């Protein structure tokens, strides 16, 4: 009897999934992804409005709708911050893996002069580092515990890859080793083949990380950026 049912199940119409699979229905996307996506959607809604030549009245309506959407996003973020109130900010160790992840956006272009890229986190512009043997190859943007984290990835001629992440805020960091290079106070964290150098600048937390990259190379780059 059971075999008959299984045969029908296999070859005919839809049946409900096994109960074991229903556990997936309760898995939700993390907040950082939700916020990043809301940002992308808001950007996408603004871009066509700028590019198309719409009648003035329609343009006004769209601008108002965009403003309302932006206010809603800000209110949503604010509400999220309020709901998160009391939870500790993410640590450097929690954010550092982002600097080792894959890029989700193309590399930012170099700005005139070639020293800096057209990407920044608040007042800090990302360096180009081409003169010291690295080139930007990608970027990503995340939100972790309500903190905006921007990352640029670099590759050297030997194919080694590093990520430079800047979080908007002073993230707690514990352990590691304090090192001074060219007057900059840096902290080195390491686990296995992964090296992380972190420092503070302009009220932000900077994180430089790489796998299989000597700590000294990271320290040298960090001393340029700190």
């Amino acid at each position, binding site marked *: 009897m059971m075999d008959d049912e299984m045969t029908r199940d296999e070859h005919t119409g839809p049946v409900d999934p096994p109960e074991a699979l229903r556990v997936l229905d309760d*898995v*939700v996307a*993390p907040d950082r*992804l939700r916020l990043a996506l809301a940002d992308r959607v808001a950007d996408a809604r603004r871009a066509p409005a700028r590019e198309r030549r719409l009648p003035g009245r329609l343009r006004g309506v769209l601008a108002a709708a965009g403003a309302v959407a932006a206010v809603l996003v800000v209110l949503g973020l604010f509400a999220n911050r309020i709901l998160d109130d009391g939870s500790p900010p993410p640590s450097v160790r929690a954010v550092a893996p982002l600097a*080792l992840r894959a890029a989700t956006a193309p590399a930012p272009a170099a700005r005139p002069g070639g020293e800096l890229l057209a990407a920044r986190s608040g007042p800090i512009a990302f360096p180009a580092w081409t003169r010291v043997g690295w080139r930007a190859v990608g970027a990503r943007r995340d939100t972790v515990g309500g903190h905006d984290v921007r990352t640029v990835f670099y590759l050297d001629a030997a194919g080694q890859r590093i990520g430079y992440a800047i979080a908007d805020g002073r993230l707690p960091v514990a352990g590691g080793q304090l090192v001074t290079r060219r007057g900059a106070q840096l902290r080195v964290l390491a686990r296995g083949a992964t090296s992380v150098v972190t420092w503070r600048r302009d009220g932000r937390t900077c994180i430089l990380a790489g796998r299989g990259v000597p700590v000294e190379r990271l320290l040298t780059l960090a001393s340029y950026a700190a």
Partner: protein
Amino acid sequence: MARLDPQALVSHLDRLYRVAWALCGSREEAEDLVQETAARVLAKPRQLYGQDELAYLVRALRNTFLLARRTRARRPHEVATLERVEPPEWRGAGLPEAALEARQLFEAIAVLPDDFRQALVAVDVAGLSYREAAELLDTREATIASRLFRARERVVQTLAPHTGPREANAPARSLR
């Protein structure tokens, strides 16, 4: 011709995230996959061509996944080694064992043979109809039904390796 509302990405985010996780087998790669898909979809206005929004987005996600897989095969795999060990984000409260079960379930789905996994992800994770899944995977509904049956069977067996075959095959049996 109906256009895709960009807001659909936000509306269907949880489902897309689950689909991405089931395809990749890793929550970190799933986040990246959803972001890459969003970037591609939002790059220009998209026509739905009669498709449901969800079906369109699942197709875009799958295409991005296949593209990324081909690209990744040509370069060294990057792993975040300072990984935090976190349970999945969870809608319910106080159910760590259920969160763990979800993680194991995603892992079990990720190791299915490709055809089986794609059918199960399309129907059971994305929530597409058999017809939509057949269109997405360019096959017949009967094939979807057959692959889905076998995929479910394997997942249940993977999660309950010590269960006897007849019991493990029961389609609606809870593992909890």
